[in-house]
């Protein structure tokens, strides 16, 4: 009599249950992880290569590369370089000044537009307006640059004169001599228009996440729409708005073409925002690149590294602000 036990080998032994992925999955996970790490690799390579090219300049100038403001390349009659001084301070000041002007102008406009879209606009209108804002985010920067130069400049110059007339007693609004065109203020306005779509869409996203029960509770307590916005929506969205504004700040700091077109690039520290002289690091690179000798290009690489680190820092802070406000139980 044959029992099942005697038929050795015919009963399959129990399969080992394991969470070990199969070979194909191992390959798949490896490839995808490698792809995912590409952003790390690329960012790392950017830092390494710019640092490698700019190292000589950074080592020679040291801290004065970002604290002094002189960009001099002296050549003798044979074209050999005799003396160089590279200091980025004027352009760093210009970068931060333009970006801050842009944020100061863009944030109130963007936040009120986002509030309008989230709480006031009827649905059909909202769809159209959101599309327009998304479209605006896709406009290339060269478009903003030449529009700013040819169309916005006359109006913005007039606004600058108004500000100077009524607020001229504040030191930063002084203009002497009276040159109002191509000032950091106008560049700031153009940058503001460029970052408005980013800040608006991030703010709108945060507003749309406001818990509905709290909004309804506020209405049930007799709040008006403005009360709801001020006491429920704005406190809830504060972190997201700050984070979105900092993303906009980072974008404004790195902008090249629009600033180069609109701004009169002069190598001096200029705190008078309405006066027609300024610059930023990115536009300096574009300006000097054309006629630079290999040695000066190294300095431009170092300037690029400083700009890269600056935008990375701003983006990191923005990320921290957004996540921290996202995890806190408001």
């Amino acid at each position, binding site marked *: 009599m044959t029992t099942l036990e005697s038929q050795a080998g015919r009963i399959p032994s129990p399969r080992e249950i394991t969470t070990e992925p199969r070979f194909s999955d191992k390959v798949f996970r490896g490839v995808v992880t490698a792809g995912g790490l*590409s952003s790390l690799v690329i960012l790392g390579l950017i830092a390494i290569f710019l640092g490698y090219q700019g190292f000589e300049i950074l080592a020679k100038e040291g801290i004065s590369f970002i604290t002094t403001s002189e960009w001099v390349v002296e050549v003798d009659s044979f074209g050999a370089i005799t003396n160089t001084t590279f200091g980025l301070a004027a352009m760093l000041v210009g970068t931060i000044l333009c970006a801050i002007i842009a944020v100061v102008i863009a944030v109130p406009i963007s936040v009120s537009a986002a509030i309008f879209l989230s709480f006031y606009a009827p649905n059909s209108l909202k769809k159209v307006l959101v599309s327009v804002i998304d479209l605006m985010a896709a406009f290339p920067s060269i478009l903003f640059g030449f529009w700013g130069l040819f169309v916005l400049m006359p109006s913005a110059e007039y606004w600058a004169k108004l500000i100077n007339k009524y607020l001229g007693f504040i030191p930063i609004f002084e203009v002497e001599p009276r040159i109002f065109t191509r000032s950091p203020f106008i560049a700031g306005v153009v940058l503001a228009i460029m970052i408005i779509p980013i800040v608006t869409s991030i703010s709108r996203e945060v507003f749309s996440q406001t818990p509905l029960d709290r909004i309804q509770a506020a209405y049930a307590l007799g709040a008006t729409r403005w009360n709801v916005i001020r006491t429920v929506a704005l406190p809830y969205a504060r972190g997201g708005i700050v984070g979105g504004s900092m993303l906009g700040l980072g974008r404004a700091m*790195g902008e090249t073409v629009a600033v180069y077109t609109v701004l009169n690039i002069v190598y001096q520290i200029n705190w008078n925002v309405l006066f027609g002289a300024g610059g930023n690091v990115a536009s300096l690179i574009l300006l000097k690149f054309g006629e630079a000798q290999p040695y000066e290009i190294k300095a431009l690489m170092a300037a690029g590294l400083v700009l890269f680190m600056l935008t990375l820092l701003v983006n990191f802070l923005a990320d921290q602000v957004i996540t921290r406000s996202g995890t806190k139980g408001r």
Partner: protein
Amino acid sequence: MSESKVSVKPSRPWRPSPKERAINFALILGSVLASYLLVAVTELKGKLAYFAVFFVALAVLNLVRGVLTRDWMNGRDQFFSIVMLLGMTMVILPTASILYTVFDRGRKGLHAGLLTNDMSLATPSDPITSGGLLHAIIGTFLLVSVALVVSLPIGVLTALYLTEIKGRLTRPIRFLVQAMSGVPSIVAGLFILSAVVYTVTKSYSGLVGSLALTILMIPTIARTAEEVLNLIPNDLREAGVALGGTQWRTVAMVVVPAAKSGLITALILGVARIVGETAPILLLTGGGDAVNLNPTQGAMGSLPFYIWKSFLLGTEESITRGWAGLLVLLVLVLSLFLLARFLGSRRTK
């Protein structure tokens, strides 16, 4: 005896009543009048004055209306509704102005040969009808295609890592993608210059320009693709695994096909992001005036370079050419955008 029929007329109490509409209209009219009056009487001048007075008047009139109909709190509510409307208007106005300017000024630069000639035989002050955009359009097409071939796989793999594998690195990688989208375009250009041009190729070409564009394109594709893949219901993944599929088979045969149109949207948005990118193009491609079909060699023209050069030449004709170039570029961006919208709306149905 006939019963009198009482039909209740449906009303829509949430809609503004005719009286309220009339008041609204009167307030707007009053504000327009106020802006004209004040500009005529006082020293205020210019478009800005009309705009400012109109909104101040509208806000104040609404405040008064609110206070009169209910109380102070209602008045404040009305006032701030106008402030928010003002913010929205200030977002829309520049967009409208940009679109109008480009269409209005670019129109004059359009001519029959625009898309079939290149600029190799035209000088800056030649009449507008000579020369054209052919080299720029071909160049842009080649630059974008090469950038697309490199960045699409990397972008989609990044998105797949963020949605399918969800390892320990998800948070940092999401941040790095975000940080990468904030890399200034000129830094991307400098990077390729130092890493590729000075070490390997020693010359400008379309290919190195594409590599710089790749850096700018990857984050856009990765983030859009991540959003799309997140929308794919988990049921599909579970079903795939329950049928005995490995993760690889599930992703390749279930998840990615389900997200196909969304991934195409991601691709289109990536193209729209880089098609007008100027700074790295200026550093890397050399910008020729003749048609160049070989991206690995020689200067390559492109739309942004053409626009940049035309405006910098500064003659009347070349500035008109620049606006025409901007018009073509804008139409390109617009159609890419509408295509992405169309595919996106089809997906959600």
